[in-house]
């Protein structure tokens, strides 16, 4: 016979479970650049995607358990296609999708024994950068609007802090990719006391060294394209872009590598552009400080 367990305890246990499982995976980022929205995820698989197209101007990115977010992705595609078919293609919005995901994940979190171990980002590219939208939905159905950039999955807090230092409005694609890679390679926060999540193993472990094109999944929502804006960047195009972004970012990486440590991860994400531009990125070639995580995302690691 089951013992009485208070609802608070049940919810806390479920949340702890989901959080700890998600933290075992790798972080991903989505950020705005002048020409659209860039999404980067460490992912050695070329077939099992973390980043996908939902609709003409909307993309889906997820961290966590593959089978769970894949089911959510397919549900989102169907939701978008049904809505667009019934009304008009313009009537499919990231806001509606984010709400649908929030409802669904919230329902699953409350009703089932095991919550989904996923974190989802729904991004929509607008006609102008002002209309861009990025939503983050967590395992319990909380949804947040993240202007500019977002880090999710794995050690999201540290990556978000590192990304905040480097992000500014109107970046080029090369700059944005450079910032994303540096943020993903950022070691666990040093002495920042940034709290949640940082106590566990170094999330992005192995990738603290340089990520190669084969280890990355990169996609963009290209503002300039008509109809379907989603494009994967891979192969020679990605290698070229990586080389370019490394050439530009390494030139300024010599000084003030501690600037990343005093940023609180929960501070307002849209830092003044001037400050962000001055902040020099820390050297990205530091060795990993912890065991590499055996991610819980179901995607085999190299």
């Amino acid at each position: 016979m089951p013992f009485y367990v208070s609802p608070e305890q049940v919810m806390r246990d479920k949340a702890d479970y989901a959080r700890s499982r998600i933290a075992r995976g790798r972080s991903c980022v989505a950020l705005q650049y002048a020409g659209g929205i860039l999404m980067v995820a460490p992912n050695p698989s070329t077939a099992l995607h973390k980043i996908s197209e939902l609709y003409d101007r909307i993309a889906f990115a997820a961290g966590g358990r593959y089978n769970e977010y894949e089911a959510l992705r397919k549900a989102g595609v169907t939701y978008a296609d049904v809505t667009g078919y019934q009304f008009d293609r313009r009537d499919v919005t990231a806001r509606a999708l984010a709400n649908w995901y929030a409802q669904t994940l919230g329902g699953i979190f409350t009703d089932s024994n095991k919550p989904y171990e996923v974190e989802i980002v729904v991004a929509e590219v607008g006609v102008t950068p002002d209309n861009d939208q990025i939503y983050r939905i967590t395992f319990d159905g909380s949804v947040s609007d993240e202007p500019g950039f977002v880090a999710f999955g794995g050690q999201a807090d540290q990556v978000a802090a590192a990304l905040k230092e480097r992000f500014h409005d109107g970046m080029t694609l090369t700059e944005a990719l450079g910032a994303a890679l540096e943020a993903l390679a950022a070691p666990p926060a040093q002495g920042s006391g940034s709290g949640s999540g940082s106590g566990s193993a170094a999330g992005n472990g192995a990738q603290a060294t340089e990520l190669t094109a084969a280890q990355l999944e990169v996609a963009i929502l290209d503002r300039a394209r008509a109809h379907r804006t989603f494009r994967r960047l891979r192969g020679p195009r990605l290698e070229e872009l990586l080389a370019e972004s490394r050439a530009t970012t390494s030139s300024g990486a010599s000084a003030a590598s501690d600037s990343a440590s005093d940023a609180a991860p929960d501070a307002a994400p849209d830092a003044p552009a001037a400050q962000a531009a001055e902040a020099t990125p820390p050297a990205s070639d530091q060795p990993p400080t912890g065991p590499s995580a055996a991610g819980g995302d179901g995607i085999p690691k190299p």
Partner: protein
Amino acid sequence: MNGHFDGGLGQAGAFMTARIPSFTHFLATHAPDLLPASLAGQLPAGSADIIKDLPHATTIVAAACERGVVLAGDRRATAGNLISKRDVEKVFRSDEFSAMAIAGVASVGLEFARLFQVELEHYEKMEGRSLSLEGKANRLAKMVRDNLAPAMQGLAVVPLFAGYDEETGIGRIFSYDVAGGPWEEHRFHSIGSGSVFAKSALKKLYSDDMPVSEAVLACVQALYDAADDDSATGGPDLPRKIFPVVTTITDDGFRRLPDTEAEEYSEQVIGERMRSPDGPKAPLRTGS
């Protein structure tokens, strides 16, 4: 159901269920009233006259060529013996490497084209790859057959499907009848009210492995011939600047010729017909 499906109120599970990645299959299971064929059996007696006077789309031509295929259609829709629309479009992009055109009841055809677009894109997004060209043609056949009951009541629409086969690197054409298909057509084909004339014209103008631009010209000539003899097919409308919709599907993907380019082809054809009203003459004997 009121024809609205939003995935809320107990419908959320529908989206999450594992299933074959077909959009029409999803609608048939969860929201069948959204499908064009949902009209079956609901038409009251005496609607035949009304249906007869619905706008009908007319002539479509297709011709395989170097690197792909050309698909073109005139711009007229007729309601009985009246012209109901001068600038209707009946050639539609299906996806990057295929296109479909319709003849028959224009409004149903429009819905078909929209549904077929979503169907192909849905599969592509769900599976991360495009359907094979045969796969696309077969899906369209199923959609046409699902419309059989309304077709028998007068709401008939028949597509012509053309695409570039990425595996073999050639353009291919598929035709249908109201009961489905697909029938693969070789070299060229035409459907719709003026198709008899258009096809005969193409037969004399067509040669294997024509460059894309010549296949386009042959199609525009064929449409002109159809308009010449079929009252339901519209010719190029110079005063209003309405020209046939011409699309090419090649290894570069789908392309709809911009109006200026379609105008150039039409003007060339009209210019030549000023001198020879029946168009180019085919040699009487086959040269050696």
